[in-house]
């Protein structure tokens, strides 16, 4: 594939089409609107369906229907709109249907700010919806990774019959970077026994919370997510082998941490970076294998250090966890280096 310069949102949207997705329903909200705009003309080109729904509630409901029909289906939103999707995501998870949800995060709560932020971590990773479910969550750190994770996300959604969330943010989605797009693939909605297609001569299908017919549901659903937690942890490590301080960061901020690692190493400080790619399941195995680490620093664009809790859980609080947190303005590598030095000098206070 030829390299193209593409905006994150457009690369995501094109990857959606190339993954064989034939259904999108969604509502405009900054900074994800280019996904909606792109698919409005692109999906009809490949015989797919695009609906600009009257609300996110309706959009995710249409996705629920399309997914039940066996089609690759998705929607995208941001912050407040993503909150409205939660009802539908809970239902889709409870009915064990595959679908892809894209959340292009913004900063802050309520109206918030439309620019850089990662403050939907809790909502996406800990589930904004009701009941016992998890959404598999992937956090891309580049335009190329975003488009790759779209295809990967659809595959995983089908493998586990579970919603998958791609957690992007304004900077990944608004920037242009070189990208090689995934190959075009076809999807056969009839290949699933469970997909709604009319009962034909067989038994009628009923798509609803599996709780109603799954024997020993509690253990069944717990085992399902344990299995995902065991098999689907994804992360990247940079210079962690001898690292005494490990930065933990995902998405756009992980890139800044990467630069900070280089700068700190030039000064002889043993720093590494652990970049979760899957936020659920959280890559706890990556923490368990660290031998020399004395402290973790969670670096993220949220005021409340949302991910730091997961860092503390992942290292079982054997090491202190520090935090560099705050949104609106993106960090510079020098900010991260300063934090590292504060930690070394004992001037920083741990959050866990």
């Amino acid at each position: 594939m030829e390299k193209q310069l593409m905006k994150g949102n457009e690369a995501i949207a094109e990857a959606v089409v190339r993954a064989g997705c034939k259904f999108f329903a969604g509502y405009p909200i900054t900074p994800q609107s280019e996904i909606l705009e792109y698919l409005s003309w692109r999906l009809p080109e490949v015989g797919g369906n695009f609906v600009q729904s009257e609300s996110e509630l309706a959009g995710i409901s249409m996705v629920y229907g399309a997914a039940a029909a066996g089609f690759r289906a998705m929607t995208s939103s941001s912050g407040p709109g993503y909150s409205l999707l939660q009802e539908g995501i809970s239902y889709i998870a409870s009915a064990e249907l595959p679908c892809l949800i894209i959340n292009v995060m913004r900063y802050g709560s309520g109206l918030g700010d439309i620019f850089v932020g990662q403050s939907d971590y809790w909502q996406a990773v800990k589930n904004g919806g009701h009941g016992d479910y998890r959404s598999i969550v992937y956090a891309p750190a580049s335009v190329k990774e975003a488009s790759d994770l779209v295809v990967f996300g659809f595959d995983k959604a089908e493998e586990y019959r579970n919603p998958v969330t791609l957690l992007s943010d304004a900077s990944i989605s608004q920037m242009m970077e070189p990208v090689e797009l995934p190959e075009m693939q076809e999807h056969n909605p009839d290949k699933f026994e469970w997909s709604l297609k009319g009962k034909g001569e067989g038994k009628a299908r009923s798509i609803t919370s599996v709780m109603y017919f799954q024997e020993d549901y509690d253990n069944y659903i717990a085992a399902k997510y344990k299995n995902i937690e065991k098999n689907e942890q994804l992360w990247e490590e940079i210079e962690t082998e001898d690292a005494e301080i490990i930065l933990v960061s995902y998405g756009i901020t992980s890139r800044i941490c990467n630069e900070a690692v280089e700068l700190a190493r030039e000064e002889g400080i043993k720093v590494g970076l652990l970049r979760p790619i899957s936020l659920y399941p959280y890559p706890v195995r990556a923490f368990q294998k660290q031998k020399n680490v004395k402290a973790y620093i969670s670096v993220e664009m949220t005021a409340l250090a949302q991910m730091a809790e997961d860092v503390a859980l992942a290292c079982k609080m054997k090491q202190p966890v520090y935090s560099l947190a705050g949104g609106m303005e993106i960090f510079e590598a020098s900010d991260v280096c300063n934090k590292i030095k504060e930690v070394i000098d004992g001037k920083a206070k741990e959050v866990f």
Partner: protein
Amino acid sequence: MLKKKPAACFVDNKYCPGCGHGIINRLVAEVLEEMGIYEESIGAIAVGCASLMPETFAVDCIQAQHGRAAAVAAGIKRCRPDKTVFTYQGDGDALAIGFSETMYSAIRNENITVIFVNNSNFGMTGGQMAPTTLENQKTTTTPRGRNIAETGDPLNVINMMKDLNTAYIARGSLTNNANIMKTKKYIRNAFEAQQNSEGFSFIEILSPCTTNWKMDPIKAMEHIEKNVTPVYELGVFVERGEKNA
């Protein structure tokens, strides 16, 4: 004239004695069977008493979230345009929490059929006020009777919908054999409109809720005749896109 319950109604329904849902379930099944499409049909079923339908109804079904059945059905129909797709909803579902999804399906003229059961209260949750609850009607949330100065008027959704560009809109009732037969004809017309890709079809059916109305079934049917029908006029309002009323 031989009569046998349709194959789609494969076990006894789970509704209260005298509940209209049983009749409507059967009418939908009969129409789908008579049209030869019941094996090719997909239902999006609402929350509320309607949610009891899939357990006894042998058609591919999906349980929609509360209020969202029309949106769920639209998602299915757009993916599988050759299947017959319908919703089955009560008044709380379709007109309160799901008003927007219901109206926008009509506005977009989605090629689906909405079967809307109006029993003027929230049945499943114990008989609270619904948008369709009559003036002065007592419910568990209007214990002194519905005060329209506070709640607004009972919602006649067909009045709001009939000027939109849709395929077929009718309202029937279940109060006697003749009305039931008419209602069945409306349901058939609605499914035929969908088969002909004419767009959105909507059948409202006035139905008794004997339990929450705390009425004997026969009295409940009399109540519909005497008090409900004057507020919610029966008939065909849109046919083949032509407005009748």
